[in-house]
């Protein structure tokens, strides 16, 4: 390998494979991160193809495997995938709604080498949680979380935050302590996919966000060594964009249910990029040579103010999907950056959230995830 090739291979070495095994899910969460037109992407990979994906990903340098979806437990071949991941010494994290788990199946997955279970919980009590999930599942999720701990598996609780539940950060932490979660992710909604559709109902005010952040910070200190607490700020309230996915096509490799090799959950919603499938070419070839993946690698594509910004190697220009879905151009500076030409779009959304916070409390109208097109075709 030449020095230049080696350097490039190190720069674009994936550490994590996000395996989106299916977009099907029993829940209808209003902030689902799957594409709004997810129903157009059918499950197209059989067990053998997924096994090959795991082997090829490991050979590329992947050491972490996120089995996710949709709901990964809907795949009947999850056992085969976990067993292969164990053989490959991958750190395997099952990211699930908890529905439809059984204790027996969780025990089987543990015995096959599953390393961690992450369960999403929408709130700390049934009414609020089930309203967001669009299904009466809260009580069942609790039972599943207890099984995970009883089986000796590490438990991550993931609670997605938004205007309706942010004021319950304290209760969420107590709830996670009761369940003896090893890790609590208090992750604010990122306003893409279904969450963008519901932004008007979900985006919090700056003040509400700051209170929850302070609560999480105090608990993190108190629970140090017992429970890890992660607080993720929504992009709409940062001054400089986050390094989305640690940079496009650098550390994360995602394979969608229909086999596309992507840098993130929503890249296939960007126009004009020809994504390639693992059914057509070996994964390593796609990872290194795919024209779509190479589009936003490096700095060539960057507009000003990114191109001359000293943070361009820190945040990589932010999130391409956010740029496209807000400005119509995937190559624009992420509008969450205070220096971005389209930052006014973010400020307008914040003002809208401030105004909503001053109104007397009323349940906002929510759009639930559905396979039906949101708009009739033009």
């Amino acid at each position, binding site marked *: 390998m030449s020095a230049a090739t080696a350097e490039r291979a190190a720069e674009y*070495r994936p*550490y994590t494979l996000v395996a989106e095994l299916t977009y099907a899910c029993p829940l209808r969460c209003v902030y689902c991160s799957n594409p709004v037109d997810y129903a157009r992407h059918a499950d197209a990979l059989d067990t053998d193809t997924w096994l090959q994906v795991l082997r090829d990903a490991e050979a590329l*340098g992947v*050491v*972490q495997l996120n089995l996710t979806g949709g709901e990964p437990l809907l795949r009947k071949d999850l056992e085969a995938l976990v067993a292969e991941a164990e053989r490959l*010494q991958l*750190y395997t*994290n099952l990211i699930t709604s908890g529905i439809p788990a059984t204790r027996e199946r969780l025990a089987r997955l543990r015995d096959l080498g599953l*390393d*961690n279970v*992450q369960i999403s919980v929408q709130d700390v009590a049934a009414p609020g949680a089930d309203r967001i999930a669009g299904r009466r599942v809260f009580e069942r999720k609790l039972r599943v979380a207890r099984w995970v701990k009883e089986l*000796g*598996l*590490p438990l*991550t609780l993931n609670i997605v935050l938004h205007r309706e539940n942010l004021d319950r950060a304290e209760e969420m932490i107590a709830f996670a302590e009761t369940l003896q979660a*090893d*890790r609590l992710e208090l992750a604010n909604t990122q306003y893409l996919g279904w969450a963008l559709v519901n932004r008007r109902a979900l985006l919090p005010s700056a003040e509400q966000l700051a209170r929850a952040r302070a609560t999480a910070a105090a608990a993190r200190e108190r629970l*140090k*060594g*017992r*429970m*890890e607490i992660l607080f993720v700020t929504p992009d709409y309230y940062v001054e400089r964009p986050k390094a989305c996915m640690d940079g496009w096509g650098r550390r994360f490799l995602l394979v969608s249910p229909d086999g596309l090799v992507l840098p993130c959950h929503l890249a296939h919603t960007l126009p004009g990029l020809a994504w390639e499938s693992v059914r057509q070419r070996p994964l390593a070839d796609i990872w290194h040579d795919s024209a779509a993946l190479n589009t936003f690698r490096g700095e060539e594509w960057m507009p000003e103010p990114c191109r001359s910004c000293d943070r361009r190697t820190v945040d990589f220009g932010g999130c391409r999907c956010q740029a496209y879905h807000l400005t119509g151009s995937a190559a624009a500076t992420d509008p969450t950056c205070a220096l971005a030409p389209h930052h006014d779009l973010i400020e307008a959304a914040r003002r809208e959230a401030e105004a909503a916070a001053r109104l007397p409390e009323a349940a906002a109208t929510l759009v639930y995830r559905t396979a039906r097109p949101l708009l009739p075709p033009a």
Partner: protein
Amino acid sequence: MSHDARPRLAPKARLRLDQKTNRYLLLYPEKGMQLNPTAADIVQLCTGEHTVEEIVSRLAEKYAPQPREVVEREVLSFLDALSERALVRTDP
């Protein structure tokens, strides 16, 4: 961490050799840590059988002529850092 504690790796963490760099990686949910050779030696001794004292002795032997106090400081600060992140445990 006290000298007679017997640290062991938490169930949520796993150690593996990174074929690409020939270094050990400590993996845990959503994250990983590349370990230098000393750190990897320490983690490999976190089995719940060895006391901190014993781990220090083993490493002092291996990394002689480094003074024992230096090794001890390094072992303790690394174990404390891991313990703060709940990656090693000392409870029975």
